């Protein structure tokens, strides 16, 4: 009898497991569209048409719109207004909101679960990953009918162009730069660096502004997670190095070059000789800017977005803040920073109709007066709240000398107290180099480990560490890479 019961039990379990497995999706196969997939995101359908006379057509499609998080009260009305206007123009599109925003450790799961919005923002860093995994749609068919297809700023489109095909709509690009807290410089009587500063001047400024007893760091760099490698890559580029290169259809590491050693030795000098870094140097992205906002870091890497955050959320005075180009390694050298940016991609898992709608939504206001109107609303809001809006990107999707660019600038000039604009001389001095094309996150993780060893071990042999890291990275990661052309 016991045996019978065991058999019954086992059969029940197997039956339930089979049912569950059958219910658990399509096993990840197929990339076919799912235009009628309503079960994603927030279930808040927006009426596509304000007019009751417009009846639902058979060809109605569902667009999952990336929507601001509920605490982003500034952006929510902007998005709602855009959705309303879009719905009026495209009554056959039913829109649902989804407040997921790109995270490199979540995108895989989102794509696996078919839960990513129909179009969404991505950072420039992710170009290789997204195109390599075919998680970004080829925009060629949509650009054919797009009236502004030739008006995009070419400086920005290259990062997402593979085999001559564009995979993302650019929004803006920035070059990593330096942000300083002038107040901390003044307190220690340290002169404000000039735009053409060098590593030596950077070192002296970081050392002089540091006050370890008070917990004030001269220079706070990220060194806890993969961001560490991202920060260090700036110094690698300044020393004239590169992270990797293609040799005979193979990608190999080059970060252990002489330039790489110089860049890592500079980190070592800042940490041990200058005692310029925070004693708890294991900081991630948020930690560094929190430290900066608390007045506990004189120099950090960043761009104008962090100025906006420091003023609007950290209560800092914008006059105490300053953006400088990255230092050059030697006098007269290039002030190189990692080129980053914000892009919008179309989800290739959607049907072609939905992909077209996503492209239309993404580009809905671009190059048009409606975008100027949206900006005006935002600026009025910032003015009322005494906040600022940073417009310090190195480049925008439009060409600065175009008619649209001039209109944009004219509006910004009307709000001198609420717009933080980057000094044109700083923009001129900055040179941007894109991030590594292959396995960027893994590269950054590898470098972060080397940085951590250097920060914990005063006698660390930098060259040996970089050589070993490069060897392991080549064997375990880059040797499996397929070259993109």
């Amino acid at each position, binding site marked *: 009898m016991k045996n019978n019961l065991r058999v019954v039990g086992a059969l029940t379990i197997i039956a339930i497991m089979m049912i569950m497995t059958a219910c658990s999706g399509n096993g990840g196969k197929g990339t076919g569209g799912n235009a009628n997939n309503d079960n994603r995101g927030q279930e808040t359908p927006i009426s596509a048409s304000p007019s009751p006379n417009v009846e639902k057509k058979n060809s109605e499609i569902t667009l999952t719109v990336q929507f601001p998080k509920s605490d982003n009260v500034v952006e929510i009305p902007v998005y709602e207004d855009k959705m309303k206007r879009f719905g009026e123009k495209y009554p056959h599109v039913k829109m649902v909101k989804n407040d997921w925003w790109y995270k490199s450790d979540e995108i*895989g799961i989102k794509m696996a679960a078919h839960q990513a919005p129909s179009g969404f923002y991505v950072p420039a860093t992710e170009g290789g990953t997204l195109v390599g995994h075919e998680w970004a749609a080829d925009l060629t068919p949509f650009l054919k009918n797009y009236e502004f297809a030739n008006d995009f700023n070419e400086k920005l489109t290259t990062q997402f162009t593979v085999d001559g095909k564009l995979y993302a709509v650019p929004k803006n690009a920035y070059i990593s730069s330096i942000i300083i807290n002038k107040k901390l410089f003044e307190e220690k009587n340290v002169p404000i660096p000039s735009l053409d500063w060098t590593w030596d001047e950077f070192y002296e400024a970081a050392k002089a502004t540091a006050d370890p007893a008070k917990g004030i760091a001269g220079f706070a760099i990220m060194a806890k997670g993969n961001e560490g490698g991202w920060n260090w890559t700036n110094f690698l580029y300044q020393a004239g190095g590169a992270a990797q290169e293609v040799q005979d259809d193979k990608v190999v590491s080059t970060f252990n070059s002489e330039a790489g050693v110089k860049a890592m030795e500079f980190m070592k000098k800042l940490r041990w000789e200058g005692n310029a870094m925070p004693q708890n140097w294991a900081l991630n992205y948020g930690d560094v800017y929190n430290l900066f906002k608390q007045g506990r870091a004189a120099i950090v890497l960043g761009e104008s977005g962090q100025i906006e955050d420091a003023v609007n959320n950290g209560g800092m005075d914008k006059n105490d803040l300053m953006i400088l180009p990255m230092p050059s390694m030697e006098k007269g050298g290039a002030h190189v920073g990692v080129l980053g940016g914000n892009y919008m991609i179309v989800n290739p898992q959607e049907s072609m109709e939905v992909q077209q709608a996503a492209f239309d939504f993404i580009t809905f206001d671009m190059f048009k007066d409606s975008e100027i109107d949206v900006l005006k609303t935002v600026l009025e809001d910032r003015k009322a709240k005494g906040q600022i809006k940073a417009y310090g990107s190195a480049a925008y999707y439009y060409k600065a000398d175009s008619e649209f660019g001039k209109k944009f600038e004219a509006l910004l000039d009307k709000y001198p107290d609420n717009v933080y604009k980057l000094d044109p001389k700083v923009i001129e001095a900055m040179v941007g180099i894109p991030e590594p094309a292959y396995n960027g996150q893994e590269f950054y993780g590898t470098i972060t*480990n080397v940085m951590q060893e250097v*920060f914990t071990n005063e006698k660390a042999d930098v060259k040996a560490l970089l050589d070993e890291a490069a060897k392991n990275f080549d064997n375990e990661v880059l040797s499996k890479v397929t070259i993109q052309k």
Partner: protein
Amino acid sequence: MQFKDQTIQQTAQSWRRKLKDYGWGLAFILPAIAVFCVFLWTPIVKGIFYSFMNVDFVKGNSFVGFDNYRDIFASSMLAKSVLNTLYYMLLCILIGFWVPSIVSIAVSELRWFKGAMRLIVYLPNIVPAVVLYGMWQWLYDPLGPANQIISWFGSQQILWLTDKSMAMISIVIAETWQSFGTAALIYLAGIVSIPKDLYEAAEMDGAGVLQRIRYITIPGIRHLYILLFILQLIGTSQGFLTHMALTGGGPNNATLTYMYQIINEAFTNLNYGRASAMGVLMFIVLASLSIIMYSIQGRSRQA
């Protein structure tokens, strides 16, 4: 023919009886089976399946045989993460295993405030993990309270989270404080179940507190030591949350555990096949460990 009919009738009758006896019982465990299927057994089966695949949820998976396993054994991180995990497990035993037992014995010996003490002991478990991690970050700050306290005794500043030799110890201290309450409550329940007359007899025979603990309390909860030891080994072998929150696996992988490496493979490197293979290897090790420990436990009971 008649014999066959009779047999069928008997079998049907026996099934009806079984259904009557066990039907309700089965009905009650069905929801649990369904939940286990969805959240435990299906992922386990799928994990084994994926470990032989190059997992690409969009383009489709492809069978790669034992490639994922080969990559794992060729990885420079494997030895490091396994050794770190073993070191972490050892530290948890040395620093953390005896704490709940001592606390529960101490609480059980209290004459007053026993209830309040039980609540206080369990309090760290109630505080949300995010708050606790924030608190420990602050405690371990180079200029924070922990260093302030040790400076009173003339000790030099300790870099709790950025010194390679200290980082794992700091994590274990934080975790011990955070989680000893649950084990302490289990020990307390065990102590409560020890017959009171044993203590009364011991007191009449003139036994002191230490003798009572040594000869009655500890032998009375001996079986719990084995159970909690196994649970701790299984739990700590999968540890990664505090490591992720406090050190991010650093400095230079000094606190990178095997489980954390699985998370990195899956969510940073987006290599779900290799992460699944690492999970399968861990499953095999833990299942073997459980079987060995339970068989030892069974033998000691028989003895």
